[in-house]
């Protein structure tokens, strides 16, 4: 934009120079033609003057001749007056002509010739007087003299006429020349005028276009300014400039809003602005603003402002110094309201600390599980081993059998503690996912639950599973937990029946699968005829330590299902539960197929 404008400016300048040149040419031409006209009229006057003088000479000569003739006839000296006066007049005329023709050699030679003729004629007059015999005009000498005089007179007349015609000719050629000249001048002037009109039009057109462009640019700038305003509001930014030398500030509208004021509601000065800065930050900010004057680029400045209503906002400012056209240092700055960021950062920090606390709690839980739980169990086992070794002979076969059972349960508990511990410690990366025979895992789980299954007469029916890529011990744990749960929460007066079904499903057909990673899943459902639960708890039961029942009614830690969820999530699968109070529950596990 700036470039096209500057191009236009140089174009307009060229136009101006061209126009000035044309006008100068027009002026010069006009001056020249006026001079020419004056000159030609002078020349005409000159020619006429010469002609008049020549005519004058001829007429004087004729006067002199008439006077001579009168004298000859009358012998009266009165007639001689015109002769003598004619003579002096002729001389005067010649003197005049000499002045008029001093620059014209051709005319000069002609005049000299004429002068010679006139002199001859005058001599002839003289001769005719002197040679005139007293009253005898019939004297042949006189007559011949007189005739000579006439001839001379004729040739003078011819000479003058020729000079006049020569003069006229010259006048005529000059006239033609001037006419040609003058004819050309108006044409040239006219074309130059046309030319300057064209120039004017082009310049006008250009200016018009520029103005239009400027208008459009102005509009765009206006829009840009407005959108800058809007974006400052949306992004909670304000901007400012600071002419360091004159100590003049400008604040953008939104900078005022950042300090909780109406746009341009106070004079933009550092003192006025500092009024809004948090008292604890004033000193530092003033110091940093001072530093701004000297440094070209500065690190971010953080400070707080206090709104009139007491709200505290965190601002972050950044300034950069530029040198303007007048060689002054001008700082351009941006100030942003980072209160939200700071708040969310703090919230994040709190969350992090909470997470850290939770982690610590979890590791202390791990320790409790690994140490404190194992200790009593180990003692039980040691005492049992001593009982078996040292007191075997004192026990009945029933007693030995019970001790066996206790040993088995204790061993299982140890395994469980170890597994649980391992599970809570391990993440997926530590575990090996392998092609596993799910049927065997289910069998192992049933073995684990053998006691409770037989005690409750639980009926478990299941489909045959294909091999699936899983972490075996975890899936076994999953089965134990789900089956154990189903038996634990059996309905009053019913034998627990658990149906395990398997099928392969398309992820898109299952509404329980949110954002599936794989196209197909193994869907394993555990349907029981137990007490079920209210649908509203379907999500809640998977959270750690959540229990739907009183401890007196059902034993349990509230860890089981959350372990199930974690196991399934380790396999990138999904687990959901649905239930109907009094009718039973269905747990659905989805495991992805690669």
């Amino acid at each position, binding site marked *: 934009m700036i470039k096209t404008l500057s191009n236009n400016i140089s174009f307009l300048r060229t136009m101006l120079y061209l126009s000035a040149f044309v006008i100068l040419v027009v002026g010069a031409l006009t001056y020249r033609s006026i001079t020419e006209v004056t000159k030609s009229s002078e020349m005409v006057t000159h020619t006429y003057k010469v002609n008049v003088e020549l005519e004058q000479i001829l007429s004087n000569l004729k006067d002199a001749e008439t006077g001579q003739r009168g004298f000859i006839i009358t012998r009266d000296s009165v007639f001689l007056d015109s002769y003598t006066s004619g003579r002096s007049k002729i001389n005067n005329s010649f003197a005049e002509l000499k002045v008029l023709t001093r620059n014209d050699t051709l005319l000069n030679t002609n005049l000299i010739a004429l002068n010679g003729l006139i002199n001859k004629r005058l001599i002839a007059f003289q001769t005719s007087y002197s040679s005139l015999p007293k009253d005898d005009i019939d004297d042949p000498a006189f007559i011949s003299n007189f005739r000579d005089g006439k001839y001379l007179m004729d040739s003078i007349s011819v000479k003058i006429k020729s000079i006049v015609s020569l003069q006229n000719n010259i006048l005529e050629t000059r006239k033609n020349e001037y006419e040609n000249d003058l004819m050309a001048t108006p044409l040239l002037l006219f074309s130059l005028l046309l030319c300057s009109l064209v120039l004017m039009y082009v310049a006008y057109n250009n200016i018009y276009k520029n103005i239009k462009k400027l208008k459009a640019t102005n509009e765009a700038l206006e829009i840009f300014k407005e959108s800058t305003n809007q974006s400052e509001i949306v992004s909670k930014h304000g901007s400012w400039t600071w002419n360091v030398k004159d100590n003049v500030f400008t604040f953008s509208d939104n900078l005022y809003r950042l300090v909780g004021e109406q746009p341009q509601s106070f004079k933009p000065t550092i003192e006025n602005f500092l009024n809004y800065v948090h008292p604890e930050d004033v000193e530092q900010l003033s110091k940093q603003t001072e530093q701004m004057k000297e440094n070209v680029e500065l690190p971010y400045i953080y400070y707080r402002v206090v709104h009139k209503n007491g709200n505290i906002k965190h601002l972050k400012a950044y300034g950069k110094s530029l040198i303007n056209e007048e060689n002054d240092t001008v700082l351009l700055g941006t100030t942003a309201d980072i209160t939200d960021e700071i708040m969310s950062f703090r919230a994040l920090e709190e969350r992090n600390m909470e997470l850290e606390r939770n982690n610590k709690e979890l590791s202390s839980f791990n320790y409790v599980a690994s*140490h404190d739980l*194992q200790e009593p169990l180990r003692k039980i086992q*040691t005492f049992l081993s001593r009982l078996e070794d040292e007191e075997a002979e004192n026990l009945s076969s029933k007693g030995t059998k019970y001790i066996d059972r206790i040993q088995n349960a204790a061993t299982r508990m140890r395994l469980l503690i170890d597994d649980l511990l391992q599970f809570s410690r391990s993440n997926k990366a530590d575990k090996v996912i392998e092609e596993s025979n799910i049927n065997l895992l289910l069998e192992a789980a049933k073995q684990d639950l053998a006691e409770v299954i037989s005690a409750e007469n639980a009926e478990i029916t299941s489909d045959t599973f294909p091999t699936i890529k899983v972490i075996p011990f975890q899936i076994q744990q999953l089965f134990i937990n789900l089956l154990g749960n189903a038996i634990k929460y059996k309905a009053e007066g019913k034998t627990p029946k658990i149906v395990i079904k398997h099928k392969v499903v398309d992820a898109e057909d299952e509404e329980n699968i949110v954002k599936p990673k794989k196209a197909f899943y193994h869907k394993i459902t555990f349907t029981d005829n137990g007490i079920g639960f209210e649908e509203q708890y379907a999500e809640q039961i998977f959270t750690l330590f959540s229990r739907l029942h009183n401890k007196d009614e059902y034993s349990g830690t509230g860890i089981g299902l959350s372990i199930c969820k974690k196991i399934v999530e380790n396999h990138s699968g999904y687990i959901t539960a649905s239930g109907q109070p009094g009718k039973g529950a269905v747990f659905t596990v989805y495991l992805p197929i690669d």
Partner: protein
Amino acid sequence: MQEDYINIILADDDEDDRLFFTDAFEEIKITTRVKTFNDGVYLMDYLNTDGIQLPNVLFLDLNMPRKSGLECLREIKQNEKFNDIAIAIYSTSASEEDIEKTFIKGANIYIKKPSDFKTLKKVLSEVVTINWQYHTNSMNKENFLLRF
């Protein structure tokens, strides 16, 4: 007379564990003299008493009130007087963290308390008959935890 028996000390706050320990040594066919202490403070007080017979092997439980096994281990290793005592960590847990820490602090062996009496006897008789001079020289993190 000193060479006739092996002098053994156990510091453990658990009464049952102390009982298993002394019972086990009674049944082992090795002449030993076993002393037990209820926590680290009692242990260190005894060890710092002048004129006592220092143990050949010291069994240290880690989790004890007042003064933990780890603290005892540090104090013992700071005192040259105790340089000849072989120290066996004797703990319920065998977490990586505990093993690492005690190994660095200079314990000689790490025993996870067994969960049956027969194993306990076997482990203890093994430990007290170790040639500590040899064991210490070839000690590394791999054989630090006693496997049984």
